[in-house]
C-alpha cells in the first residue's frame, strides 16, 4: 500500500488537521516509511495462527452498577471557552 496526495488529504480532513503542501509531502514520506516497515510482517507465514488479541492473561475488569450522585456541572464546565446556563456553547452545528 502506498500513501499518495489524495490519501493524505483525506486522512488530514478526517482528523481535522490542516496541512500545507510542505507538511503533506513530509507526512507522505513518513507514513510510507512506516507502512513499508510494517509490511515486512507479510513475510511471516501466519496461516493457521489465531490472531492475538491480548498479550496479557488478564481479563476485562468490571464495575458494579453503582452511580455516584455528585453534581459535576461546575467542574465539567470549568475549562469551557463558552457556556450558558449549564450548557456548553459551541459554534452552530446544524444538520
Amino acid at each position, binding site marked *: 500500500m502506498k500513501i499518495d496526495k489524495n490519501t493524505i488529504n483525506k486522512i488530514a480532513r478526517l482528523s481535522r488537521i490542516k496541512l500545507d503542501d510542505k507538511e503533506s509531502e513530509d507526512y507522505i514520506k513518513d507514513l510510507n516509511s512506516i507502512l513499508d516497515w510494517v509490511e515486512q510482517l507479510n513475510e511471516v507465514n501466519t496461516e493457521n495462527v489465531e490472531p492475538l*488479541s491480548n498479550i496479557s492473561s488478564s481479563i*476485562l475488569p468490571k464495575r458494579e*452498577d453503582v452511580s*455516584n450522585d455528585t453534581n459535576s*456541572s461546575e467542574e465539567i464546565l470549568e475549562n469551557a471557552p463558552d457556556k450558558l446556563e449549564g450548557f456548553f456553547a459551541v459554534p452552530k452545528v446544524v444538520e
Partner: protein
Amino acid sequence: MNNLIKGEKHDWEMVIGLEIHAQVKSNSKLFSSSSTKFGSSPNSQVSLVDAAMPGMLPVINKYCVEQAIKTGVGLNAKINNYSVFDRKNYFYADLPQGYQISQYKYPIVGEGKVTIDFKDGISKDIRIVRLHLEQDAGKSLHDQNPSKTYVDLNRSGVALMEIVSEPDIRTADEAGMYISKIRSILMYLDTCDGNMQEGSLRADVNISVRKPGDEYGTRCEIKNLNSIKFIKQAINYEAKRQIEILESGGSIEQNTMLFNTSTGKTRPMRNKEEAHDYRYFPDPDLLPLEISKEEIGKIKSSIPELPDELKNKFIETYKLSNYDASVLTAEKQTSDYFNETINSDPELKNHAKIVVNWITSELFSLLNKNNQDLNNSPVSPENLGQLIKLISTNEISGKIAKDVLEDMFSSGKTARQIVDEKGLQQVTDQGEIAKVIDEVIAENPKMVEQYLAGKDKLLGFFVGQAMKLTKGKANPKMLNDILKQKLNKKN
C-alpha cells in the same frame, strides 16, 4: 395478504430493516459511574470519563453486560462468549471522545428472531442480525440561539443496545408491530424502560422498493425516529418518494435522510460528500469481553416469562384466540392485570373470553377517555373480577354492567356496593317477568295483531317495552323466551 403498492406499470413491494437503539436500564453509565437519570440539570451527570478528559480510562458496567445478554436471550438469539469493543470515529460537538465505543466485528449477541402476530391469526418471524452494546452521545440543542449550539453531556456514555433486523419487514404496519414487539420484550425483561418520548427507544429505518421477486433496490436510511407513528409515516412517505423517482425513469441515490415530523416529509442530510468513514478499530483501552457458559446459563435461568410464552400459556389454559392472547401480553401491565383479575375468583377461569373483553374494550376505553394508565386504574383487578362474576352468574345484565363499571371508575366503589345500593339485580323471577309482558301485550293490541300477521320484527318492540318497564333489569334471555311463548299462544 396484499402488501403491495399499486404503481403505474406494476406493483411495488417495500423492503425494510430496522436498527433499534434501546437505552439499557441501569443506574450508572456503560463505562463510568455517572448517573443515568433522565431530566436532570444539564451537565450535572458527567464524569471525567464521559467528558473525555485526557488519561481517563473506561471500566465496563457488569450489569449493562448482563442486561444485553438477557435481551439477547429474549430475542431468541445466540449469545457470543467472546466480543470486542471498537472505536467508531467521527467528530461532533456532543461526542467529546471523538469516537463512540461500540462493537463492530464481534458483537455480544448474534442472530435471533422475534414473532409478530396479525389480527387474522397469522404470524411472521422477523430475523435479528445482531445486538451490540455501545455508548450514547450527548444532546445538542440547535434551536435556542441563531449562532450557537448548546451541548448537554448527561446522556453521553449511557449504555445503548443496538438491535439490527434483517430486511424482513414489508409494510409500515409490520415495522410498527415489530418495534412494539421489541419494546414489549424489553419491558418484560426490564432491560429498557421503553419510553419513546424520552428517547429510551428510537429507530433508524432502512428502506428500499422493488418489483416483487426482483433483487433488493438501492436503500435509503431514515435516522432517529422516536415514535411508532413517525416510523410508519416516514416509511410510507419515503416509499412513495422512491416509487415516484423510479417510475419517472430515475434511480435512487443511497442516502441518509431526516424525517421532518411537522411536514411528514423526508429529506437528505447535507454533507453527503463526507461519506461516512468511521475507521473502526479495537479500542486499546478495553480488553475483549469474555463471558463463560456458566454466566450465560445463570442469566438464562433468571429470565422471567416472556410475552410469547405467556401468550401460548393463555391460549392453552384459557382457550383464547391467538390475537386476544397477543393483545393481553403486548404489555406486561396488561398481562399482570389479566392474571390478577382471572385469579381473583375460581369461577372466572371459565369465562376468560369475557374477562379479556372487559379489560381490553370496556376498561381500556374508560382509561383512554380519562387519560389514565392501567398501572393506576381506579378499578382494581379484584373489583373488575367481582363485576364479571356478577355478569356470569346472571345477577346483572351485561348492559347494566357497563354503567356499573363507569360508576366504579369514578366513585371507587365495588361492583357489589353499587349493585346493592341502586338495586340493579337482574330480574330472574319468571312470574315477575311474565306479569310485565302481560302488561305490554295488553297495552298494545294493534302491535300484537301485526306481529301475529307476520311482522316478526315487532318482537324487538315488545322486548324494548318490557325492558323499559323493568328499568333494563329483566334477564334478556328469559324475557325473550317468555315473550315468544305468550305471543305464540295468542295465535
